[in-house]
């Protein structure tokens, strides 16, 4: 087990290295420079040259990459090319909001998906069963930005129930819509998984044994069915976290949430290399760690799974 953990941890390094390499090369290979944004009043050539020298952009790409790697290992991602602030500062400011959005969305998704999946498995063809099928079809097929538009139109514009611009500190009414929309995708996915694995667990022999030795229905469901049915749910938390991460920059852009995702889109449009690198590495690290944690926890939850 320890050997497996160490090997998986070591695999994280080459993975992140290649993510960094691909992003770096692509971002740098692109024509144009971060200093040619103002087309009507271009900067003097001498100024651009000085800026390039200052930020080390005049050196060959491989040299820049080595410098980047050296700094990145110490978690230093440099300074934004457009704003006079360090990347860590910019990410540090957005991260709490993005993390709060992601965690709240994951919580909402789980809080709805698990009860819904369990109840629809126990009461097949009931109203709740149909409701969960409806929800999971909508959530997995309709793109989140379209759902966001429809929600904004109904709850924001027509009914004027909820605000739909900005974020806040602590808990704020402005957080409701972005959180719910971001949660819908993973919620649908988790409901499907819960339902499927409940249906499978119910038919197992150990459930029949539990019933035949006279255990109450509640005990059977909670300690025998549920405990086993939730293991597959735990394994898809990794992909769910990935969905939340990639979903966040669309949601943040639509609802003007000042988080990392909006910063990411802004930096890409402005070709602000250091921020692009910093945010991409952050996203990749979150996904790699989420998947790794899930794989390791899976082995602990289900002793039948032999990790090797």
């Amino acid at each position, binding site marked *: 087990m320890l050997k497996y953990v160490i090997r998986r941890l070591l*695999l994280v390094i080459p993975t992140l290295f290649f993510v960094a390499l*691909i992003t770096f090369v692509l971002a740098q290979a692109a024509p144009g420079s971060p200093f040619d944004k103002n087309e009507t009043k271009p900067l003097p050539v001498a100024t651009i040259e000085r800026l390039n020298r200052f930020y080390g952009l005049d050196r060959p790409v491989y040299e820049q990459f080595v410098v980047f790697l050296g700094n990145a290992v110490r978690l230093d991602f440099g300074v934004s090319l457009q704003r006079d602030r360090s990347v860590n500062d910019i990410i540090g400011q957005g991260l709490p909001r993005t993390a709060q959005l992601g965690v709240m969305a994951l919580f909402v998704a789980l809080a709805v998906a698990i009860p819904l999946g369990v109840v629809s498995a126990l009461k097949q063809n009931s109203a709740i069963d149909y409701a969960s099928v409806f929800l999971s*079809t909508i959530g997995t097929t309709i793109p989140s930005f379209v759902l966001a*538009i429809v929600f904004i139109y109904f709850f924001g514009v027509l009914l004027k129930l909820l605000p739909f611009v900005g974020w806040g500190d602590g808990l704020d009414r402005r957080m409701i819509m972005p959180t719910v929309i971001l949660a819908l995708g993973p919620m649908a996915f988790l409901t499907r998984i819960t339902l499927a694995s409940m249906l499978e667990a119910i038919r197992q022999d150990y459930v029949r044994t539990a019933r035949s030795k006279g255990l109450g229905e509640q005990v059977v469901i909670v300690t025998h069915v549920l405990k086993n049915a939730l293991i597959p749910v735990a394994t898809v938390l990794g992909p769910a976290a990935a969905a939340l991460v990639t979903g966040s920059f669309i949601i943040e852009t639509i609802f003007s949430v000042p988080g990392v995702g909006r910063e990411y889109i802004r930096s*890409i449009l402005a070709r602000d290399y250091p921020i692009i690198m910093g945010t991409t590495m952050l996203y*990749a690290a979150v*996904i790699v760690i989420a998947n790794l944690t899930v794989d390791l926890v899976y082995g602990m939850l289900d002793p039948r799974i032999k990790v090797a």
Partner: protein
Amino acid sequence: MTTASRAVSTQERAAVLNVIHRQQRSLWIDAWERLRRNRFAMAGLVVVIVACVLAALAPLIAPYDPVAQDTPANNSSPFWEQGQYWDPRYVLGADQLGRDILSRLIWSARISIVIGFVPTAIVFSIGILVGMVAGFYGGIVDNLLMRLTDVVYAFPDLLFVIIIVTSLRATPIGEFLGGLILIFIALAVVSWVGVARLTRGQVLSLKEKEFVEAARAIGAGPGHIMRRHLLPNALAPLIVTAAFSVPSAMLAEAVLSFLGIGIRPPTPTWGVMINDGFVVFSTTPWPVLLPSICISIVMLSFTFLGDGLRDALDPRMKL
């Protein structure tokens, strides 16, 4: 024995041998029968076909030029909101630049269909080829493929596509056909690995089966085995994956265009239309809501069709 060999058709032969003759049915006919009984899947199929026809005939059907601006008619409302802003020439209204929304919706279907099918075709050609070779021969190709998948899986799909598209936008490839080709390439680069991995897995389990051994025993070469024995047997899950890959490519285009880094305006796509109208969304919602509805309907149809295909082709496959 002699009578049996003289019999011509299978029916006669069955009669002679005194066994029950049954019409031969291939897996594909069975699957089609199962698909036809699935009402949701058939509804999805109909919508997909209608969308394809609209896309193909866009220049004939669309009442106006999708990029022509009729400035006095700007922001006119759709027919169900008749009022002082309704212009009878534009059934679904016009956007803030006075472009006919109905025509733009029809032309958008064209881009969406192309974006859905072309990258999927590229992805599956490359993915199946590499996956076959990796699964069949193993060795270096296999090792490389597996390491590559590790990296690609750590990269969120959309993030990867965004980085490729934004960095190559200003190149000649990025400007060709309003950015269409670049989106093809980005989607293909990101998704072929998944298909290759799926094919590899299929081939790995199939190549140990008896029919492959039998084919080898009668002297079939590796190319023949891959084409005639492995591919047809691995096809079912690949078709299902393709049915889901088409809408996800369409979705990627819509998201990119919505974020302003996809297809270049004024070329109409549903994503571009949403992006165009989003600024004035709270006062004139229809130019944004209508393309959103179109995207949703097409996505739902493909999902129903994909689910139906999965149930029809492989009843044992789950989720």
